[in-house]
């Protein structure tokens, strides 16, 4: 990782890596770290409020923060004899979608890694299969979702399939590209130590492509989220995408915006988790 941070000559030299740590400064540093993003969030909210006040656009399309907040509160309560929104609490909607995404991306991980490795290492396979992969990864879900419904029904299966189809290409392609970037000598060394075809994959190829695999997975998760509404256009309740779709059609923009925010925040959290995992699993990044 490269940080180009301007250093003034008077700046204390020591990034003393082994300096003893105390709790106070640690807390203060954590607070300091959170301060800027929080500030930026506040600015954003203020801007939003301003736009609404200026009535640049109809409230129909840009709801006021307060009404989105009200919907949030409502979404976790029983009101008018109905639970939350469209009969489910917000967290139930969110969880329904999240579980579909985790399943879709989970399958995509297994399939994408295997596919990427096969594409990269078995030339005849690549010649035959790569065009189809490129074909599939360009297909718009809206155009072929009906087929999935015919094959897999309107329940979760077809939704998970759609998310899977959205998620595997970035993983496969990242792995493929990662393998192509491995220095020849890395492979040679293992083979001269006696590694067979699959041992090379296990001990050299896979660890080598871990950084790319993580990038691919992060991209796949993002893609899956962008596809969640398409996947939940049919029988999508409970589901945060289905809720967004339905309420958008009714121009209940405050709920739709609430859904969008919920999707975005969940995606951020998920992404953070993957990044933390990456740090643990790939400590050699940028060092070798």
């Amino acid at each position, binding site marked *: 990782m490269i940080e180009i941070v301007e250093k003034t000559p008077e700046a204390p030299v020591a990034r003393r890596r082994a300096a003893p740590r105390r709790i106070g400064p640690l807390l203060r540093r954590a607070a300091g770290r959170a301060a800027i993003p929080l500030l930026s969030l506040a600015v954003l909210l203020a801007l939003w409020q301003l736009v609404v006040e200026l009535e640049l656009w109809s409230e129909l399309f840009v709801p006021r923060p307060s009404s989105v907040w009200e919907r949030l509160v409502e979404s976790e309560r029983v009101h008018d004899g109905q639970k939350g929104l469209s009969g489910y609490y917000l967290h139930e909607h969110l969880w329904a979608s999240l579980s579909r995404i985790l399943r879709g991306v989970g399958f995509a991980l297994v399939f994408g890694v295997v596919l990427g490795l096969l594409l990269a290492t078995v030339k005849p396979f690549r010649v035959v299969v790569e065009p189809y992969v490129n074909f599939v990864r360009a297909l718009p879900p809206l155009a072929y979702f009906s087929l999935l419904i015919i094959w897999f029904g309107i329940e979760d299966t077809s939704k998970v399939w759609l998310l899977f189809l959205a998620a595997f290409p970035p993983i496969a392609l990242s792995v493929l590209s990662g393998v192509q970037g491995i220095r020849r000598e890395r492979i040679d060394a293992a083979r*001269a130590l006696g590694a067979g075809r699959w*041992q090379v994959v296990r*001990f050299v190829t896979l660890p080598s492509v871990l950084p790319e695999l993580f990038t691919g997975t992060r991209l796949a998760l993002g893609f899956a989220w962008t596809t969640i509404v398409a996947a939940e256009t049919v029988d999508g309740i409970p589901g945060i995408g289905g809720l967004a779709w339905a309420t958008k059609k009714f121009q209940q923009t405050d709920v739709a915006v609430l859904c969008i925010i919920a999707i975005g925040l969940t995606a951020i959290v998920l992404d953070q988790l993957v990044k933390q995992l990456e740090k643990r699993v790939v400590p050699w990044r940028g060092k*070798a």
Partner: protein
Amino acid sequence: MIATGDHRVVLDGVAHRYRGRGADVQALAPLSLAIEPGEFVAIVGPSGCGKTTLLQLVAGFLTPTEGVVAVGEERVSAPSPERGVVFQQANLYPWMSVRANVELGPRLRRAGRAERRRLADRYLGLVGLSEFADAAPYELSGGMQQRCQIARVLANDPAIMLLDEPFGALDALTRDRLQDELHRIWLGSGKTALFITHSVEEAVYLGTRVLVMSPRPGRIVFDEPVPFATGERGAALRAAPEFVAFREHVAAQIGRG
């Protein structure tokens, strides 16, 4: 892998030409060479003359553009664990600890955990890295990485050792010690060694036979057995007049091409 069977190395009319970005480069002129099992062949030659290319051809990393490389009865077409390679530039796996790097060969042939540990401890000790067994390779200095690589290959016990300037980044003391260790390991093991070095003294000290290569395209311009190869090693030898004489004899050949 215990050295068994016939592993005579034969290069028959072997030449190698690289397709360069600009022009093609004839790295090796056609050359023929046979290395008998148990020989310790030291190669010296000017920088860029094709030593590494020669070694990689024997290792099976490259396929010659002309001629045939064979080990025993079999034509070399791919790397094999019977031919262990110490690379010119350290080539350790950063996702494995130093110890795991050394254990890799035994692990690949499914040696037991205890056996692996024993081998790793032994060879890490030999190269003086016991203390760093749990470090990551990128936490080692240049010379330490090179030593780790040597340990990795030795732990795999290859019948043929291909060593590309293994001691290049080591200080004199460490180097002397490792030369003696390598000699001891080779001695009586029946192993064959192909040893590239820039130090004529090292070549003469370790080799049973010394080759000198001409500048690119590499040919073999000198090929003689070392007269005192069967004798004792040690500081005494380095000072012995026949050692110095042979060293000078070889040194005089370099750059003759």
